[in-house]
């Protein structure tokens, strides 16, 4: 290569834009092409819109060059971005920036990377039964390593703030880069002549430029921090410093869910775990047990649901979420479908037991549901919800309460006993609390997975022999398997490899025979 070529003058300036369908990448490209054409600068653009209208990833590729004064003719423009040959890479979302880096389009010798730091989660990240999100700091770190210069900002939030769209902000950010061959005025003229939402897009352009030039903290600081506890509570006596934040949140939850006595029960239970764990630097077992114990004890039954749905603060949240302007009434409809389980929750234990046995006998338990669409913003709807929420005082007498406490005790027993073997194993047992979640069928399935892991691995291990480390590893793998699919197939295959193997062997030939 000759010395210090000036992109856009001595050779084409190459610009690769990665966007998601519906974000206006086409319009963004049009603005740039228009600006070049109006300024007499040579330009060629292309795109892979493909099936991107349905939120797929899409790319636009543009090459730009001032006409040569030496009469050597027009430059050759290519239709494909080439790794190691991209002067500016733009991504409308963080994982798309990661993809650009992954594909070699961001290189330290020349690429200015402009990317929005917000996340639009991919399908695989959304459908995971737990947390399937890609670890974002890996991308922000890689951006700093591989880009000649990285401009990472939350352009999406800024777009909403300026009532504009992200494409206009990205254009403003591009204009702010030293090496961009088009001036702010040229680009703004293009926005005006295109005539699409001119005022909003000019405002967005300015916001994007300012954001790019601002010294917003560069990556490293996490974008998604867990909220700190909302209010100051005095330290819970007798518990180590390391778990105070969780205890505080847990206690608050249980007071809200039931009453102070229930909170006391929570602390009592944790004292047993503390005693079993002994003194360790981080109290990992206690901390995770405290977390999942609070969530489990504050299990979501119809009473809890009705309570949370009929609070005044909720209506304000909904108004905000639905972007309702002041003076615009908002109607809220709830979708309930109570079945035998939910109805029995509202009955005293003996009656509930009768109902459940009767339903099980009749075989109607899974199929029986009453679809209720309740307008919770109306007087009657609200009163119905408050009535159900009021059943809180009778919760301790319900069958569900009885059942949950039994399960909780079983879990705590195992955790404390595992502490005797190794803290690693005890932590894995404690983390199994994460499996307990959901409503209806989902909750039933979760309980089933939990039972299996306990019966097959943890309980035998708590009293048995064998390497505690190996067992801990097995628990972790079983937990991952339980979160891998909805039907419990992965967990079954993990726990009972022989059976599922022979099952496969059995079905294969018979399927052939059927043919």
């Amino acid at each position, binding site marked *: 290569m000759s010395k210090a070529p000036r992109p856009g003058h001595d*050779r*084409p300036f190459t610009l690769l834009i990665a966007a998601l369908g519906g974000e206006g990448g086409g319009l963004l490209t049009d603005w740039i092409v228009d600006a070049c054409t109006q300024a007499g600068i040579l330009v060629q*653009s292309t795109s*892979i819109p*493909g*099936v991107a209208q*349905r*939120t797929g990833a899409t790319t636009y590729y543009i090459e730009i060059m001032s006409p040569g004064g030496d009469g*050597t003719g027009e*430059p*050759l*423009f*290519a239709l*494909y*971005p080439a*790794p*190691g*040959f991209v002067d500016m890479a733009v991504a409308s979302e963080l994982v798309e920036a990661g*993809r650009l880096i*992954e594909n*070699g389009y*961001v290189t330290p010798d020349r690429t200015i990377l402009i990317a929005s730091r917000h996340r639009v989660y*991919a*399908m*695989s*990240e*959304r*459908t*995971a039964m*737990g*947390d399937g999100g*890609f670890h974002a700091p*890996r991308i922000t770190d*890689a951006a700093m390593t*591989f880009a000649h210069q990285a401009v990472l900002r939350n352009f999406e939030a800024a777009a909403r703030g300026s009532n504009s769209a992200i494409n206009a902000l990205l254009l403003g950010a591009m204009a702010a880069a030293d090496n961009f061959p088009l001036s702010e005025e040229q680009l703004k003229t293009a926005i005006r002549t295109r005539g699409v939402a001119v005022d909003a897009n000019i405002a967005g352009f300015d916001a994007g430029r300012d954001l790019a030039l601002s010294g917003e903290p560069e990556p490293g600081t996490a974008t998604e921090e867990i909220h*700190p506890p909302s209010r100051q509570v005095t330290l819970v006596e007798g518990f180590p410093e390391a778990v105070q*934040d969780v205890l505080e*949140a847990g206690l608050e*939850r249980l007071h809200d869910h039931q009453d102070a006595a229930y909170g006391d029960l929570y602390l009592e239970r944790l004292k047993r775990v503390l005693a079993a764990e002994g003194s360790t630097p981080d109290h990992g077992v206690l901390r995770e047990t405290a*977390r999942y114990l609070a969530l489990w004890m504050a299990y*979501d039954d119809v009473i809890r649901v009705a309570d949370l*749905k009929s609070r005044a603060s909720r209506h304000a949240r*909904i108004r905000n*979420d*639905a972007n309702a*302007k002041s003076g*615009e*009434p*908002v*109607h*809220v*409809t709830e979708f309930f*479908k109570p*079945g035998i389980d939910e109805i029995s929750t509202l009955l005293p234990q003996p009656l509930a037991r009768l109902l459940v046995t009767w339903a099980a006998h009749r075989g109607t338990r899974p199929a029986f*549901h009453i679809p209720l669409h309740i307008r919770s913003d109306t007087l009657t709807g*609200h009163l119905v919800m408050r009535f159900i929420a009021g059943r809180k005082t009778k919760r301790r007498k319900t069958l569900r309460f009885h059942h949950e406490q039994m399960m909780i005790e079983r879990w705590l027993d195992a955790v404390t006993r595992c502490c005797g073997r190794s803290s690693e194993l005890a932590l894995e047992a404690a983390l199994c609390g*994460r499996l307990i979640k*959901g409503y*209806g069928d*989902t909750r039933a399935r979760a309980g089933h997975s939990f039972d299996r892991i306990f019966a097959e691995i943890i309980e035998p291990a708590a009293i048995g022999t064998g390497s505690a480390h190996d067992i801990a590893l097995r628990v972790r793998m079983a937990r991952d398997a339980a979160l891998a699919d909805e039907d419990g197939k992965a967990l079954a295959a993990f726990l009972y490899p022989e059976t599922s193997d022979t099952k496969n062997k059995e079905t294969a030939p018979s399927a052939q025979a059927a043919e």
Partner: protein
Amino acid sequence: MERSFAKEVQTLKLGEGDVFHGEGILAITKALLQAGVSYVGGYQGAPVSHLIDVLADAQDILDDLGVHFEACANEAAAAAICGASINYPMRGAAVWKSTVGTNVASDALSNLASAGVKGGVLIILGEDYGEGSSIIQERSHAFAMKSQMWLLDPRPHLPRVVDMVERAYELSEASSTPVMMEFRIRACHMHGRFETRDNKAPEVSRRQLLQDPDFDINRICLPPATYGQEKHKIEHRMPAALEFIREHRLNEFFDGPRADVGIILQGGLYNSVLRALQQLGLADVQGNSQIPLAVLNVTYPLVPGEISDFCAGKRSVLVVEEGQPAFLEQAIESILRRADIQTTVVGKDVLPMAGEYVAEVLLNGVGKFIEGAVPEGVDLQEVGRTPAEVARIRQEAATALGQTVPTRPPTFCTGCPERPVFSAIKLVERDLGKIHVAADIGCHTFSTLAPFNIGNSVLGYGLGLSSAAAVGPAMSRRVVSIMGDGGFWHNGLNSGVSGAVFNQTDGVLVIMNNGYTSATGQQFIPSTGKNFRREPTGMTIRKALEGLGVSWLKTVTTYRVGQMVKTLRDALTTSEGGLKVIIAESECQLARQRRIKPEIREQLKRGERVVRTKFGVDEDLCTGDHSCIRLSGCPSLTVKPNPDPLRVDPVAHVNDGCVGCGLCGEVADAAVLCPSFYRAEVVQNPRPVDRIMYALRSRFMKRESAAP
């Protein structure tokens, strides 16, 4: 189309000496009018839909020139309209997505190619291969060879492309043979410029009528004429074509100082090969290559003399030919063998046999060729530097990222009416067990991807029902076939439904009636109710099915998941034999939004009461299991970090993209998922009664919640 192309239509009016700025496919459209076509027909499909969309909106231009435009029922019909050029000196064009469209068109194309043409025929193929493609990966090249039609693959430079359109007609007429011209995805979407000429009114047209029909027994595809046509292809048409290609220099040859080697390439890959050469330090910014180039703007037939002249005196040549089989490489080997030229032919040994030739592939392939061929005066160390550097950075990036970043396969749009059907199938499967689903082509093919993974096979457009014919009787449970309304009118009505009724096939067919061929850009179809000129058609799917004698026929609004589940279960379990058809009906949400957004804006401006619906999730109730997402997959139903300090799994969240279709509520209800969904209806421009009720309710809630 609910979308207007008025702006693009204006570019078709440009005259002598004007400068066109725009997309490749639009440039081709303009080139057709400049070449004086009498007719244009086609079937929509990426990347060439635009040609049809724009012409459909350009009625005034077409009327002025007398050009006939036909939005054809399928590609076979589009190919068949070219029959006009067999007997009459009419230039015509047909356009579709290839190879799928060419497959459908093959019957007509074979007959057209055999009969030969008087007026020039140009078939424009959107070669949907590689990144961004939505179909099976094959080449159109084989069709050209087997039916003996000429195949052009012009260098993607708009002035060249436009010139090639004109030349293609001359070539077609000089050799009595239809000509195909392929354009890859990026070339179709390439934005460039060229100097225009006036449009040419055709000599035969709607305004210049033919008086007498022509009859020529030799143009009929029936023996004995077909034997004569086959001979005529070889004895007259092929030599005429070779002569024309050579004389008019349709292929381009560029000299270079490293004359002991050379590269022969498909015209369409010219820019990419040049970019690779630039990266290797073997070409300058203007694209002057040190390696001599033979650019094949015509890839079938090859002119043997041109190939042997180029190769003579070279030690080694590289053939750059995308896809497989390696027809060009084989043909070049054969030409050189016959000419007794000993040049080594390198091709698929340094370049991949399969897959798109993106920049990196060509950089590595051309680099390897140079390293192996060792041209005189080339610094091999310099050549090897860039590929090694790119490989190193790729490797380091992979390590830094730790794992592959999540992919984004296509999915149904926000509020898509087809999504609920697959939610319903998933729910039915919970009761009845897994069902074999014979999928079809359309947006609904995305059901095979996450989160549904429903659909066991895809056989072609409109072939969902036909593809269930043999598997159905062999399956313990009834088989469900899917068909879109686009597929239904394209092919499914005939090969699927009439075949199933005729054979008394026991099965279930779900027809997605969303009003358009949505996957290709919402073009109108018979059941849209109007054609592209906005004339009413009066055609419906139901009437067509009743006409064919389908008796078990239910129409269900797709968003009613519970109703859909019940209807599907009925269809799957009824003792009634024969075909059971469910018409799953709701308008394409993209088209609907495009239509209603301006209407709503107007209503709001006039101060009318408008209710806007948005769904939401109570974040304190969501436990982060994401069952709802797995049953819906709606892009606006996503996740966000859990605001609860105790919970670690992200919560479900409905973002601002929500169009209020109601599926998440319906699914939560039908699947008895969880109570965290709610529907919020914002009353815009409320009436006094709305305001009073709202004020009363608010006051009551405040007092009630203030009470202990």
